[in-house]
């Protein structure tokens, strides 16, 4: 009797374990690159929060898979002949998750909050004379003078996207985080199930009215095809891979490149590059101190380095990277190699000649190395080796990324806690033009870390921002690219893509500049 009871109990226990392992129907379980800690996409530029933003909020305009700007919440828009007056009309049927209709007033408040935080938003707002909502569906923007990046700003993907929020939320002080998470996007955030460090949950927004066009990138009809999306935070890369192989998650956003062969071997898993624009590696100079206070010495780095060695060191498989001798990302509208063909060839003779011409006195380059980010850690040793062959003295200083982030804010000389250069990477969609690419900001003290100071560069960027003709914009972007050779602010060191890995029962993934989880089905 005891034995029978024991067997029954064992069976019941086994069944309960099995039930625990069964996936819920029509639930998409994804493991992303980071944990969702902050849920205000205007307050932070963290990529994970941008992903969250695209789940629950919508945008007036969006980029399609070819990085072309398309209306999203906007039904139609028009601009006056002098480009000073812009009118945007919202689509019919847009609704917030709480059931209230989306109004132009909501959008005006949202643009203003974003415009107070984001660099590109601030630039746009500096041109805006009036932003008004003459009726519930019309947004009217009046400019003080013509500005060529109105659409680019409103369609901006990447860091700090102009997401639309209800007016009462958008009126939150831009320096403080929002406390209510109501959007009008294809998914609804289940705040009560969100556990930072564990998971975030989204439900299908059944009232969402998608555009009629097919989905393309972040534009077109955003149709949620699963009932529930769970973001499961798995900190350890190997565990992420194991969880996908074991079917505990359906999709990995960013499996490390060195583990891709393991995933490629599994017959149930496929790899997919969702963001073909990828990321661009770069070296950033501190122009305040020797040796990089001299533009010619900075240019010598362009001759000393080569992109292949650097990309091989961090990505490895050439399938996932491209050498790209363009300041603006390859594959983007402003791509150009003009003036850059002979750079990044490890031409040590030319680099040495430049150093001699510039009077390089052997001051060591304090090169900060981030050791805890796999895609960056090997860049510095390779750069050191190549630069030393060209005659530089390089002192690689290893630290974790957060220490690097802190130290790069210091303007002290390298031997007093400052720095000379560091290597990093950018999402290509964040550097599509001279205004968006913050490393090109050369406004001295107001520029980002490295503090380049070049009136000519600022003149070109300003001209670009005022230009409305795409052909002339392209010419100005090329002028910026050429100016970088005379006054290097930073140097691009090649581009790479980050494949997603997913189980084969997941279909409908979209190529997009940011993670798009609509249109996906779990079979």
């Amino acid at each position: 009797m005891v034995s029978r009871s024991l067997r029954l109990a064992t069976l019941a226990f086994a069944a309960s374990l099995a039930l625990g392992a069964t996936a819920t129907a029509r639930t998409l379980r994804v493991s992303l690159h980071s944990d969702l800690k902050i849920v205000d996409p205007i307050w932070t530029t963290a990529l994970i929060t941008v992903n969250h933003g695209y789940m629950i909020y919508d945008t007036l305009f969006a980029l399609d898979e070819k990085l072309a700007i398309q209306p999203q919440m906007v039904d139609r828009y028009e601009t006056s002949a002098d480009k000073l007056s812009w009118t945007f009309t919202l689509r019919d049927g847009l609704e917030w998750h709480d059931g209230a209709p989306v109004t132009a007033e909501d959008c005006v408040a949202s643009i203003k909050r974003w415009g107070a935080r984001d660099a590109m938003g601030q630039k746009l707002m500096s041109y805006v004379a009036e932003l008004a909502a003459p009726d519930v569906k019309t947004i009217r923007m009046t400019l003080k003078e013509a500005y060529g990046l109105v659409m680019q700003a409103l369609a901006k993907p990447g860091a700090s996207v102009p997401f639309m929020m209800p007016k009462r939320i958008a009126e939150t002080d831009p320096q403080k985080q929002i406390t209510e998470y109501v959007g009008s996007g294809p998914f609804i955030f289940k705040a009560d199930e969100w556990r930072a460090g564990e998971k975030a949950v989204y439900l299908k927004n059944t009232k969402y009215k998608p555009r009629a066009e097919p989905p393309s990138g972040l534009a077109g009809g955003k149709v949620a095809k699963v009932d529930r999306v769970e973001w499961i935070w798995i900190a350890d890369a190997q565990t992420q891979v194991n969880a996908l192989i074991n079917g505990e998650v359906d999709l990995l956003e960013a499996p490390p490149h060195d583990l891709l062969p393991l995933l490629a071997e599994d017959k149930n898993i496929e790899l997919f590059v969702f963001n073909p624009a990828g990321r661009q590696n770069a070296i950033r100079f501190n122009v305040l101190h020797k040796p990089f206070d001299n533009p010619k010495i900075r240019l010598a780095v362009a001759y000393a380095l080569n992109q292949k060695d650097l990309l091989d060191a961090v990505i490895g498989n050439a399938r996932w990277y491209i050498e790209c001798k363009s300041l603006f990302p390859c594959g983007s509208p402003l791509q150009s190699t003009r003036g850059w063909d002979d750079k990044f060839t490890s031409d040590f003779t030319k680099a040495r000649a430049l150093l001699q011409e510039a009077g390089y006195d052997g001051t060591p380059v304090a090169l900060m190395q981030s050791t805890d980010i796999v895609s960056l850690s090997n860049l510095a040793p390779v750069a050191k080796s190549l630069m030393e062959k060209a005659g530089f003295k390089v002192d690689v200083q290893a630290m974790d990324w957060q220490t690097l982030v802190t130290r790069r804010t210091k303007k002290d000389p390298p031997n007093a806690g400052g720095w000379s250069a560091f290597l990093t990477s950018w999402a290509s969609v964040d550097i599509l033009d001279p205004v968006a690419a913050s490393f090109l900001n050369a406004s001295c003290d107001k520029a980002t870390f490295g503090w380049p100071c070049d009136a000519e560069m600022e003149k070109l960027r300003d001209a670009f921002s005022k230009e409305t003709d795409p052909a002339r914009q392209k010419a100005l972007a090329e002028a910026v690219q050429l100016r970088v050779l005379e006054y290097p602010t930073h140097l691009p060191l090649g581009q790479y893509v980050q494949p997603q890995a997913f189980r084969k029962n997941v279909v409908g993934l979209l190529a997009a500049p940011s993670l798009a989880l609509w249109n996906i089905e779990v079979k």
Partner: protein
Amino acid sequence: MFGYILRRLAATAPVMLIVAVFVFLMLRLTPGDPAAIIAGDNANSEQVAAIRNSLGLDQPIFTQFFIWFGNILRGDFGESYFFKKTVAELIIGRLEPTLALSIATIIIAVSVAVPLGVLAAYKQGTLIDKIVMGFSVLGFSVPVFVIGYSLIYLFAIKLNWLPVQGYQRIGDGFGGFLQRLILPSVTLSVIYIALIARMTRTSVLDVMGEDYIRTARAKGQVEIKVLFRHALKNAAVPIITVIGLGIALLIGGVVVTESVFTIPGLGRLTVDAVLARDYPTIQAVILLFSFVYVLINLLVDVIYTLFDPRIRY
């Protein structure tokens, strides 16, 4: 005894004060600036300075300390710089997974290691003894993450018996809770099994030659009773010390195990907070760990009296 416990508890106050000063200074003296991390890649120096000001990080270090310490005395551990929650809420939310993992680990470790150690002592010099001691050396030597990945490969990926990762709260179902706790707690228990088994063997061997063991055998006691009722009980004090130390050491072990198995406990919280330089969270978690450490030591001292009546405080 009661007076002793009160005196020991009172003695924790200066210990906690020293820990508080030490943790605060260590964090402020190590490189890293939460303001720069919050500001992100596009920020300029002015924006970073504004954030630093809003967090109070631009005030003199002593002012920062006294504000923080004054708040702690009022039971306010502050608000995380990154999570929009108070540190107390964060810690409470992460307590259950770490407690569950620690308790399961100790239960497994003690229930496996003590019999193994007694067995090894009883079979001293035999193959069984050598196997147990061999396992002990291996358990010490192999890093926790290697054991974790190996168990995942075997039991999750190859046999598909258990999940690779994750944690289910006990309130969401006991089956899932247990299912997700098995691999991490077995992984973490290996080193403690090794430690406790070795200590048990040594302690039991020490008492096996005593007169009362011979007397028990002479009275016709069965060997298992001799071993567990007479030998083990008299060998208990050093074993309890090691178990107490083990519980304290668990604090370090859970950090790695929680990372490998994606358990959202205090270990992960500590790692995340350190990486993000989330000072209020790091300070509170370390204070909590220190307090637990002190309490475990006290508990071990009290338990001594249960096993050895000669010990009195």
